[in-house]
């Protein structure tokens, strides 16, 4: 893979966009803050809000059904003459479990989809990566067409280029 460091976010973004347009290979950008705007050639947003909604529904519905089962089937109790299925009193715990389900799903989904928790990542072999979280703008390309990638990089004048074995 080819790893290039740029002095500015614009330089990195333009090089990444051109590589994606030219099908030079798989391109990933690295920087120390959230990108200014969506990258050219990167389709769609994150699926994780939907995953969190799913986690919330599982937590909430599961919590409600657990309470309903406990108070109607497993351990019915007459509390102040209320019906066994006194659903309004299930609402607080249902809400809390829905929030818990959503937050846990978000964290777990992030760890999975964002490629975290990997014990080895070849890109770390590049010295350029040392500055990615300190203010450098790093572009990594796994070239399908190495000549194309080098041509684009030459046009955008990165401050450093490295080649790393995968």
């Amino acid at each position, binding site marked *: 893979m080819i790893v290039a460091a740029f002095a500015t976010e614009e330089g990195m973004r333009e090089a990444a966009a051109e590589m994606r347009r030219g099908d030079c290979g798989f391109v990933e950008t690295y920087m120390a*803050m959230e*990108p200014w705007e969506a990258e050219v050639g990167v389709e769609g947003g994150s699926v994780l*809000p939907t995953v969190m909604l799913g986690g919330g529904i599982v937590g909430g519905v599961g919590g409600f059904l657990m309470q309903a089962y*406990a108070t109607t089937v497993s351990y019915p109790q007459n509390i102040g003459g209320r019906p066994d299925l006194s659903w309004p009193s299930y609402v607080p715990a249902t*809400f*809390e479990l829905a929030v818990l389900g959503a937050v846990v799903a978000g*964290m777990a989904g992030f760890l999975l989809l964002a490629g*975290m928790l990997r014990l080895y990542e070849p890109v770390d072999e590049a010295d350029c990566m040392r500055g990615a*979280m300190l203010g450098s703008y790093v572009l990594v390309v796994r070239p399908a067409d190495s000549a194309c990638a080098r041509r684009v990089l030459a046009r955008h004048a990165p401050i450093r280029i490295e080649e790393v074995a995968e």
Partner: protein
Amino acid sequence: MSAPAVIAAGETAQSVTERICAVTLREGARPWTPLWWWVAFAVSLGLLGMGVISVAWLFYAGLGIWGIDWPVVWGLDILNYVWWIAIASGGTFISALFFLLGVEWRTALNRLAESLTLCAALCAAIFPILHLGRPWFFYWLFPYPNTMGLWAQFRSPLVWDFFAILTYVLASILFWYFGLLPDLATLRDRAGRPGQRVFYGVLALGFRGSGRQWRHYRAVYAVMAALMAPLVVSVHSIVGMDFAGSAATGWHSTQFPPFFVFGAALSGFAVVLVAILPLRALLGLQAYVTARHIDVLGRLFLTSSLCVAYAYLMDAFSTFYGSDPAERTMFVLRVFGLYAPVYWGTIVLNIVLPQLLWWRAVRMTAPLVWLIGLGVLVGMWLERFQIIVTSLARTQMPSSWGQYTPTIWEWSLLFGTIGLFLTTFLLIVRLMPVVAMAEMRAMLRGGVG
């Protein structure tokens, strides 16, 4: 008059990163850990030790070592729980609610405020367990399949409380840690000492700042913030319902849930001010926590004090507008009886003193704001004393009236949790980045002033 800037002039993404990393990593600094930190840590450990002894004695001797008895069956245990959980709310309000509102001043405060939330929530979570009498059976509150065939009583606000605290503590930890990931990665790449590189490297979980990571990160953070804001309101509403669900005099009121949310906001903003004012000087954060932050926090503080004043007023109004003589008798005794100093202390510290914050000169005078904040923390503790103890001491039947005096073991437990709070907070301040660097960098790129 134009508002002061949220960050000092001349600050850049690079300077913010360098300054905050220097506070945490302290490369080349002598001593490596500042003396003030060691002094504060020693005091905190001393208090924590007192709490450990108190808990050990409680486990050995049982609840009889506390001053609770009939009719005052809830004492400092529940009082301290409600006090701590309210203190915890400030960080969530600042971090989640003001994130959703898109205000710039929260960026420099959210990390410290969230850390305060975490530490206070941990202290709060201890009390309901200790108060159980046989705390080693606390797991019976979990709805788990068991051979006894028993379930928790899901119609009780006390069980709702269990779910609320469980969710709040876990969600606060995850929200805090998730927000830390980019900054831990920055520390990992900046650290010079091998031990620090490993420590922050493991904690960063492999965050590298890739486009894919940022895309997912921002989406998850926004949804978490959107969930944390109603969560904090639900937690304090449920704490209010712990009381409102009972028929005790002074408790059975529909205004308790919002009343407790107002009180939580007041004590939450108070603890943020009390912690941040000395820390900005000790850690050299004046460029990031500016006069604008102090001014805004002072205004929020004043607003929440006015909300609490409204709740106190409605409490008095509904008591005398209603027709229950026991409620009226209890209220008169609360105001003029044995515990009257507690009531008037509450009014002075929570309502009267914060009115000084109407004056900008007062809001801009850090020692005065700090003292008012400290006064509110004491005032909110007194408020819980008058809600819990006065109501239980003056029940519907005068023949059952009693009084309550906390024992040394209850006081030592309170000071022990203050020690736990300070110990955990000091460890976070020493080991974690105290300002959200990635968010500050993004804010600076957007051009703020």
